[in-house]
């Protein structure tokens, strides 16, 4: 009897240890899962649920309308114009930010210790809040008192002075320029980190082989940076597709929707027009578009993935 009870007690202890072992990962993961569930998964699912309602978001007057909001979205020219603006922002972000960031990174990488102050100066725009930047550049572009037009006047190009943010032809371009100015330092730092990890011996071997600095850059350093470039492009595109704050502060999406983005359009629908249901449809569509474009981008750039 004693023997049996001892064995059974031992078996119980082993079982408890086993279940504790299984429980431990769950316990450690729980806080992260809980945060993700509350702040990401639930809002996402709820946003899809809300997209099926006609609701102003204020009372108990929500009405289930099925896919009506989605049908409306499919034919909503304003939404597609906003989506197109997002794509323009993404394309110009990549085309402008990447080369300039790369050039700055290469220059600062070669500049040695003397470039420390420059590195800090170049990084400053990223440290400023988008709202502050927005206010600053709203003044910069001001048609009457803005330094830009004043500068154009000063150098004799007064005929080129424009209502940069009030003209449908220039509003999006003016805002894209600020977005690029804000984010170039971020990609510059990414590229500088990539260049810093380039082995000095390879440069030296190439020098002994007779390669010029230009050849070393194109044939050695640029291929070394391909993984970093891929990451930067993906980040830039995703960021552009989700962009909101600077545009909202500078133009609010105007004039006449010329600088409207999906996010500002969603915001206007929810908080200005009080169409929570339709706004949620825009948000959900935005999520799907971002996921689709990011997936395609990642798939086609897989060969440039950083090797670890």
């Amino acid at each position, binding site marked *: 009897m004693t023997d049996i009870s001892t064995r059974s007690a031992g078996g119980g202890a082993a079982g408890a240890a086993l279940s504790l072992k299984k429980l431990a990962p769950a316990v450690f993961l729980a806080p992260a899962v809980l945060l993700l569930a509350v702040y990401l998964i639930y809002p996402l699912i709820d946003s899809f649920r809300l997209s099926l309602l006609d609701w102003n978001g204020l009372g108990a007057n929500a009405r289930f309308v099925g896919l009506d909001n989605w049908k409306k979205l499919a034919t909503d020219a304003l939404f597609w114009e906003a989506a197109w603006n997002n794509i323009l922002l993404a394309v110009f972000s990549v085309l402008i930010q990447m080369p300039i960031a790369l050039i700055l990174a290469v220059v600062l990488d070669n500049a040695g210790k003397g470039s420390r102050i420059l590195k800090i100066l170049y990084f400053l725009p990223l440290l400023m809040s988008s709202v502050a930047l927005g206010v600053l550049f709203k003044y910069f572009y001001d048609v009457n008192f803005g330094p830009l037009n004043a500068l154009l006047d000063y150098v004799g190009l007064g005929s080129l002075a424009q209502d940069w943010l009030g003209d449908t032809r220039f509003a999006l371009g003016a805002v894209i320029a600020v977005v690029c100015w804000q984010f170039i330092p971020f990609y510059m730092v990414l590229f500088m980190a990539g260049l810093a990890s380039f*082995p000095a*011996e*390879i440069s*030296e*071997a*190439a*020098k*002994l*082989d*007779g*390669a010029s600095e230009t*050849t070393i850059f194109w*044939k*050695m350093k640029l*291929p*070394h940076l391909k993984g970093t470039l891929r990451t930067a492009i993906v980040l830039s595109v995703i960021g552009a597709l989700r962009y909101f704050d600077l545009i909202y502060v500078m133009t609010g999406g105007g004039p006449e929707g010329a600088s409207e983005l999906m996010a500002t359009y969603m915001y206007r629908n929810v908080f200005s027009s009080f169409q929570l249901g339709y706004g949620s449809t825009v948000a959900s569509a935005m999520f799907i578009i971002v996921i689709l474009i990011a997936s395609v981008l990642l798939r086609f750039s897989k060969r440039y993935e950083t*090797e670890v």
Partner: protein
Amino acid sequence: MTSITLSGVNKSFGANFPVISGVDLKIDDGEFCVFLGPSGCGKSTLLRMVAGLETAYSGEIRIGDRVVDKVEPADREVAMVFQNYALYPHMSVYDNMAFGLRQAKTPKDEIDRRVREAARILQIEPLLDRMPKALSGGQRQRVAIGRAIVRQPKVFLFDEPLSNLDAALRVHMRSEIATLHRNFPAASMIYVTHDQTEAMALADKIVLLHAGKDMLKHGSIAQVGKPLDLYHRPRNLFVAGFLGSPTMNFIEASFAGQQADGARVALKSGEEIVVPVDGSTLAAGAAVTLGVRPEHLAPVAASGAALGAQTLTRRVSAVEHFGEYSFVYLDGGTPAPLIAKVAGDGGFKAGDSASFAAPADCCHLFDADGIALSHL
């Protein structure tokens, strides 16, 4: 002419941090010269100055008849093999080897011929289409050597090329580098290592370098010469202690007088040893250091030497057996134990009293400044 001449070469990183001091050195045509020394002695820096990757603070470097101080690395007709191989990671083995020739605008068919010839010599023909990441350490090292060979340089520079390889591969590649030297007799080679075995095995000439305070006091070069000259006739205590494993035994002693067959020294333990050197410059009773290598201490019974003549008797503190030979650790008279290297297991055990002969020809004597007294 592929000789290399360094005259009065100095190098410092910043005003207060000299790394190379007063190097005067001539490396002859086709000579295999090894820069050897402890970490931080500046051997790689010296090599990089020859390559043109570092500039000398002062002095002159010639390759052949040409002063190369202001010549670009690519125009010095040198090729270098790096410690970490430094292969171009985004190029195939073929392109790695062809890169330098393409930069020099060599015709395509000539590039192809040279790359395939080097690949044949190094037995890496099947690897030509592979990328560096798909190669083992030994294969990468061959490719790095191949990249050097195709340029047909006048001088090959090796910067610790074997230090990333495992012990067995290191021995193998060492013999391949020796073969390479035989295959390219016209090219001079400079090889940097901290491994004395590599230096002894490969070198026609060893340049042993000082580090730290010794460098500041005596200059960078401790001794230059053939490997066995440095081994058998070290110029000072540093050289004597650096070459040989285990290191040479050093025993404090005093000069007891000069006689026809050499200087007689009295050890603190009471024994007297005669060393065939000229001690005429020493005053009676002057402090000296006796040096004798572990492999030269012969057990008295085995050597047949008469007890008392050139003999050291000590208590055995420990024995290490390696099958082919044993190290016998001996207590007494020195801060560190004396070590004797004996054949087989030696038949010693800890606690025994053992006597070892120190043959006069194999003994070295250093004055109070650590300078070796010249042999008779």
